[in-house]
């Protein structure tokens, strides 16, 4: 295993491409909300809510943020150092990336 610093950024790691991807995502999101203007839900189950403009868009956004926020609130309550249950480091597997080592499997 070689620890090289990321001096070889791939397509996904170049800042201009990351910016492009984010802009692309924003454009897609805007288009998806605007799409609500061009169709009508033939049989909504919950009339007022489901047909609200861009309902699932902003609902998805808020739900996602809420889940992450609850996670951050939960963390201080349940976080313990890694050796809390088992004095030895938790179940780290032996490294198996030796060349052409397909025979020993997980027994190594």
């Amino acid at each position, binding site marked *: 295993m070689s620890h090289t610093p990321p001096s070889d950024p791939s397509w996904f790691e170049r800042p201009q491409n990351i910016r492009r991807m984010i802009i692309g*995502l924003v454009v897609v999101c805007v288009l998806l909300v605007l799409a609500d203007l061009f169709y009508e839900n033939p049989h909504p189950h919950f009339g007022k809510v489901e047909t609200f403009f861009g309902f699932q868009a902003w609902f*998805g956004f808020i739900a996602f943020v809420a889940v*992450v926020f609850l*996670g951050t609130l*939960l963390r201080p309550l349940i*976080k313990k150092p890694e050796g809390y*249950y088992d004095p030895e480091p938790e179940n*780290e*597997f032996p490294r198996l990336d030796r060349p052409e080592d397909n025979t*020993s499997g997980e027994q190594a």
Partner: protein
Amino acid sequence: MNLLSALPPGWPMIVGGVFLWLLPKRAQAGGALGLAILSGLLFWFTPVLGDGETAKTFSMLGAELQPIRVDSLSRPFGLVFHIAAIVSAIYALHVRDTRQHIAGMVYAGAAIGACCAGDLMTLFVFWELTAISSVFLVWASDTPAAYRAGMRYLIVQVGSGVLLLTGAIIQYVETGSLKFELFVSEGQTLFGVEAISPAAWCVLIAFAIKCAFPLLHNWLQDSYPKATVTGTVFLSAFTTKLAVYSLARGFAGFDPLITVGCIMTLFPIIFAVIENDLRRVLAYSLNNQLGFMVVGVGIGTELAINGTVAHAFCHIIYKSLLFMSVGAVLFRVGTAKATELGGLHKSMPWTTAFCMIGAGAISGFPLLSGFVSKSMIISAAGEEHMFGVWIVLLIASAGVMEHSGIKIPFFAFFAHDSGKRVKEAPWNMLLAMSIAAFSCVALGIAYPLLYRLLPFDVDYHPYTITHVVTQLQLLMFAALAFVALMKSGLYPAEQRAVNLDTDWVYRRLIPKATRGGQVAIELVDQTFRHDFLLTLRSGLRMVQRSFNVNGWIGRTWSTSTMAFWAATLLAISLVLYYT
């Protein structure tokens, strides 16, 4: 052919699996794959019971048993279990560990046998067999932590089986029948809930444990991440989905399951946000997916049951795909912790691509399998006008996007470059992942093939404009929220830590709380032992003293003493006879 049809489905894997050790080590993995394929072919040609037909009945010790019931509900589970067994066997082709091959095959075969069991006793036998065989996949990691986790897993699983047996016995005593059928009967209610018999309660709790209901769930997140790389792929497919099948068979339409299922979809996603071990994240994610299925069982309409079966079918494939991709990372890098990973897309491009297909499928992107199955359950909640349930399932869908759709691929393969450069996964792992990834796409596009397998004929069309647009809105805005949180630095950083869950109760609290009692027992025990040993020792000393050369028994007696005692005895007997 008659003999073959009398054997329970999955038997080639159970019987053949037990004898795998006879093969040379290099051939065992291939042998296991062969058994899975053979069993799959036999199952495909097993005749399916039509409506109104009943399975063959055997009498044993006065009880009527139906060991084989392949009908429209058990067949899709049997099929997908076979697919999972075959894919997992390919994924494990490089493994040279006899234990794991035997355990994997027997486990898969037992799960298939269980979902085709027509009576509670047969179900119990296979139920316990899945528990006993699968624990070896955890133990095979050969670490002390895995050994202890395996022990906890075994206790929980066998406990579930004992409850099932209890339920079966009560049922037999009360009704004289062991048939495994719907336990919920219309009409009778208790506190506004359908009343079910005590036997049914035992069986329900047995299923609830295996299905990882809230507060009974933690065996899953405890043991699965500690199993071997290939073992976890096996584990992820069978146990919990067998429980979903059993719930669908026995408790369809049991209302409390809706509430339980809703809680189950919500709480694991919050734990998944802050979990560092990616296999544990997947275990929480698995728990959340089970929640969707339990909601479907609870609603119990034809659409909901179809949705549950379809979702279980798709879920087994994409979940094993996710476990396989994270397993490949673990296999190559040596860890599955988010803090240690990142930037692996450069060295494991194929694994990255397959993982993203799995992530898309579980999130429910159109054209992938999750979209056509999860939507049936959400629509079923809509059809029944259950607004709260519908909202919860939407929140849960956004949560799935968070932990499985984004977190898993992002932190393993992208994020900050960890600088780790490893080889791509071995060919057999890539082959297994490609089959699973292809199935995710195929099921998403050719969904009528899936729908034809479902228990009921329901006219359902997933690809309506409304559905595609709203689902994409939900997912893309969730992704947008992720970007916004990352950019603003509000997204919680991954941290090396252990997060407590209900297992804390039996791993820390109970041992600590019972500490006082333990001390008291130890004290009493010690005192008693001490006193007993003292008595014993003094007794021994007395015997020793008596029998040594100068002891009163051991020393040499003179003849006159003997003559005196003999004369005395004679005199006594004379007196006795005379009177």
